[in-house]
């Protein structure tokens, strides 16, 4: 997969095959286009719903206050949109959790299948693609917005199993995309070739030396073969020195070594993935990213928050269990902190080749599978948007009259200039995009 996108990429640049492995560390194709600004979308997923009364602002409109769960986002309030009353209306096979994550970005039903949930009928994969992939395809189809990968799917502590609970993004019907939750694997995907270049450079002298030593001891006829080899090594040396890490607009991220994948390390892993995401945007490797924390029905024990019980377990406690509700609020607050950290890093980073910060050109969408954990409701799905990437009017708390979330998904696409008339199940697209998003304040 890596290879084809490289070739196409460089074919567009008209570069030779010999320069292939090395040129990708140069500043991206995107800089060539200075007229329209860059636009990015990030979708963050966290499981098991929220505690509505500690999450949603009471007020509606431009004058609103953030409650406890969203308090970490205070510094970015003027770029924030909270959307209450957007509902996942998709029914069909699968229980609420499965449909919660499986229909969240796709807006369409799951296939019937063999994965049995807590109730309802068993289901398979989604029957359509997800909005992040729809937008990615749109951007990749246009040379001005094409990037090396198009989209990157990050994860944190996503279980090894591939089933309807662990997949959020779909490239198409029955085509789930596996999020990469191992930062080293992601690093390799993004920067592996660079590491290889450095290693190749380091061995050249030794190679040449040994070639000469050997050539001296064989007969003239055979020597020509080694001489040819020597020429190739010399050419490789020239190619490697002409493309070096200095050409990149920023440093290659240094990852802390040996961080194991475990619940204790979740905060650290979250930071590492966010750093890699920032970096990949700086290199313009992609314009769309998803960040999936665990999975639907995720049951992490978040000990660093002094919480002993698993998240999913907790989410099934009754509304009257004060302690549980307080702990659930703390959990969602921690997720909000991750979003805040991501926003901060975007704000601190100047837009490469453009004006302002990366946050000016990015929209982060934080969402969840359920409206509320213990009722499994798919109404009032949490949607919090942050960033100015899509010309939405930010700095408001909006309340909708139980609209299908397909319309929000379509609005995101329209924000990129991709004017689709429907997305997912067309029955839920009536009324088109949510015009309030772009209404002038």
């Amino acid at each position, binding site marked *: 997969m890596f290879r084809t996108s490289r070739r196409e990429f460089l074919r567009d640049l008209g570069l030779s095959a*010999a320069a292939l492995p090395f040129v990708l560390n140069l500043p991206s194709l995107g800089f060539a286009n200075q007229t329209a600004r860059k636009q990015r979308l990030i979708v963050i997923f966290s499981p098991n719903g929220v505690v509505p009364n500690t999450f949603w602002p009471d007020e509606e409109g431009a004058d609103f206050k953030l409650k406890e769960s969203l308090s970490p986002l205070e510094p970015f309030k003027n770029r924030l949109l909270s959307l209450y009353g957007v509902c996942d209306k998709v029914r069909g096979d699968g229980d609420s959790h499965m449909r919660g994550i499986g229909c969240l970005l796709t807006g369409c039903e*799951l*296939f*019937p*299948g*063999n*994965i*049995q*949930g*807590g109730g309802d009928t*068993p*289901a*398979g*994969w989604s*029957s359509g693609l997800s909005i992040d992939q729809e937008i990615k395809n749109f951007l990749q189809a246009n040379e001005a917005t094409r990037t090396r990968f198009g989209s990157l799917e990050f994860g944190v502590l996503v279980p090894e*199993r*591939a*089933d*309807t*609970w662990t997949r959020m993004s779909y490239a198409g*019907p*029955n085509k789930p995309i596996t999020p990469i939750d191992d930062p080293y694997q992601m690093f*390799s995907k993004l920067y*592996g070739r660079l590491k*290889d270049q450095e*290693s*190749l450079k*380091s*061995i050249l002298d*030794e*190679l040449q*030396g*040994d*070639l000469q030593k*050997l050539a001296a*001891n*064989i*007969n*003239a*006829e*055979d020597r020509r*073969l*080694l001489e*040819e*080899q020597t020429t*190739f090594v010399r*050419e*490789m040396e020239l190619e490697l020195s002409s493309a070096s890490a200095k050409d990149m607009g920023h440093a290659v991220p240094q990852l802390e*070594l*040996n961080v194991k994948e475990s619940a204790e390390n979740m905060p650290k892993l979250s930071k590492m993935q966010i750093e890699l995401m920032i970096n990949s945007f700086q290199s313009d490797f992609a314009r769309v990213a998803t960040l999936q924390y665990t999975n639907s029905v995720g049951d992490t024990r978040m000990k660093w928050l002094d919480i002993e019980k698993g998240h999913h377990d907790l989410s099934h406690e009754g509304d009257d269990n004060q302690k549980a509700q307080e702990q659930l609020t703390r959990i969602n607050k921690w997720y909000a902190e991750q979003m805040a950290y991501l926003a901060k890093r975007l704000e601190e980073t100047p837009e490469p080749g453009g004006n302002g910060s990366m946050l000016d050109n990015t929209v982060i969408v934080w969402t969840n599978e359920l409206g509320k954990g213990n009722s499994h409701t798919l109404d009032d799905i949490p949607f919090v948007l942050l960033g100015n990437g899509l010309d939405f009017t930010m700095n408001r708390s909006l309340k909708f009259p139980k609209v299908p979330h397909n319309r929000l998904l379509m609005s995101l696409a329209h924000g990129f200039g991709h004017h689709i008339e429907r997305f997912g199940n067309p029955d839920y697209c009536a009324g088109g995009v949510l015009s309030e998003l772009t209404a002038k304040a």
Partner: protein
Amino acid sequence: MPQRFTTPAGLFARWRVIPTLICATLLLPRLVQAEDPSPGEAIYRAKCASCHGAAGEGTLKSYPNPLVGERSIGELTDYISKTMPEDKPGTCVGDEAKLVSEYIYGAFYSPTAQARNKPARIELSRLTVRQYRNTVADLVSQLRGPGQVENQPGLTGRYFKSREVRNNNDRVLERVDPVVAFNFEDKSPDEEKIDAHEFSIKWNGAVFAPDTGEYEFIIRTNHSTRLWINDQRRPLVDAYVKSGKDNEHRGSIFLLGGRTYALRLEFSKAKQGVNDKKAKERPPEPASISLEWKRPQRVEEVIPNRYLTTAHPTESLVLKTPFPPDDRSLGWEKATTISKEWDQATTDAAIEVADYVVGHLGDLAGARRGDDDRPAKLKAFCRHWAEIAFRRPLTEDLQKAYVDGPFDKVNDPELAVSRVVLLVLKSPRFLYREIGSPAESKNDPFDVASRLSYGLWDSMPDAPLLQAAAKGELATREQVVAQVQRMSKDLKAQAKLREFLMRWLKIERVPDLSKDAAQYPAFDAAIAHDLRSSVEIALDELLTSDGADFRQLLLSDSVYLNGRLAKFYGIDLPIDAGFQKVSLDSNERAGMMSHPYLLSDFAYSASSSPIHRGIFIARSVLGRTLRPPPEAVTPIPPHLAPDLTTRDRVSQQTKGEACQSCHSMINPLGFTLEHFDAVGRFRKDENGKPVDSTGSYRTRQGDTVQFDGVRDLAKFLAESQETHSAFVDHLFHAMVKQPIRAYGPQTKESLQKSFVSQNFNIRELLVESITASALTTVDANIQTAAKNDAGATAEK
């Protein structure tokens, strides 16, 4: 300009005493060149040199190729009388023609003359593409160990009474299943032990990949399934989640031929996820599963029993990096040239291997992430890696340069390992054969070990071989033979031999055998696939039989058929019969030449092709050289000459003088197979006329032999020393990949003698050939630095 016969290096026919003497006497005049030239030479200078050059080297203006070949003096005389000089044919005839033939034969034309003028030598070679891939795979396997090798055909099936194949408490049944093709319907695999509503099955074992290429594995089932091939961590096919109506699941993987790969297949009849407690209240659902594959360029089939074993091999490293193909212009992979693409491929491959090694340091180096002495363990691993990759012990200097160096330069030991692997695999000591041995030793034991392993396996020496080398136990012929006999039992040796035979039969590539739908409506891809399988089974049987008698390839009177083939070829077998040996009428058929697969391949879509068949016999079996046709001629389509038989039509088509220079040999050979139509069925008539399958062949000695039908031809071929000589040549070159003449003038002769005396045992010939190539004296190599094979033809 019509082109005549040239000989690629390494093919020289045995000559008779008298021509030898003539050659010898012709030599004398050459030594006193300054004095009177011989009559033959004088004629040459007067009538031939202006086009062919003073020493037969050719002239750019008229005839640019060297005047070399392997026709006999008699044939040359004939030819010259009829067609030379080209601008005035008929002006050099009778005694003149004879004298000039004798001159050129001895001076530069004949193989002996060629050998004398441009001696063959053993050239420095890099690893061929196949050798590179095999070597890397074996490097990793040696570090890991082979796994459990003992086996029987089939897969071990473990049956569980619940949906959980990982729960050993639920395992109630274990047996060896020959293939995986089950329709359980709504029942249980075992009524007593397993409830029909819910059960699971796990199959373990290995699959043998006969060819190198892309394999597609297919599972047809209506329930949850997963398949692992080779990599036991990531499934190749993950249909654990059943979604929608899809009951067919596929995954493709590139595999190296001649190896077995671990296979694990899981099947679970039940809902997955939350346990469906109400399932038992409903009637059981139907369940079925079949494990199929599609070999490279073949059709889909249930994986046959003969390719499944219950062994447990360890994971192989099969490189994905593509390589540019090797030069096959001489009929064998010549690896004495390199290119930029090849160099880039070795860089990419080295990076691929380095990533793999670093990703598997736990089981390859025994050094897990938490180990205290990990850096020391990793360094020791790198020393070992360099040593086995270089195929000889590591000197202190090399250790400093290749191992200590990278470790000193970086802090991170894993990065150091990655660099050592890179450096070692880019090193000429890895990429080239027999380089870096101490200059004095002619038969350095590690070079000998390399010759044995690359000759027999196209791969690196294994541990026992390297140990023998270290102990100096590869010095005598007896010691070498003992190793060769041990090594020829390995699957890799059989695979290489089988691939050689497929090449000898000219069917190494899978052809498109589409036939005319009106004439042969039943001949489809399935029949073509089965025919090829039939050949494969026959070759496997031959190579593992006691005598491994080469003549069986020509004389056998049986063929392997299954039900489908039997029906097509009019033999009485049950339609679902598996492959079995069927006797044929030995008056009608003989050996592989009359195997329907070859006959169908050497044919057009609606007619036989005596030319293709004749070329196969001439080139492969008799070892004759044939250049491409001098003039492009479109074959006469049968429908434009409906009254002619194929034989007549082909004769008509090739009757031109220029064509006849080759077709006078090709056609009479191919005509002997005319009783077989385009799909290899026997026919008595064609177009209402009785088939004429008489033929002939003019030997290199000049005698003409007549045949009537394939059995006559086969008998002649089986006994002819031309056949034996050609086969010895072909096998030697396929295995050793150096010109046989470079091993001294006696080698070819003695190999041929022993081939005959051992009743044409192919395995024994292999042993003799490899042994002869192993203990060579370097003197034979250090001849002049003249380049070899300038006049090589482009042979198919």
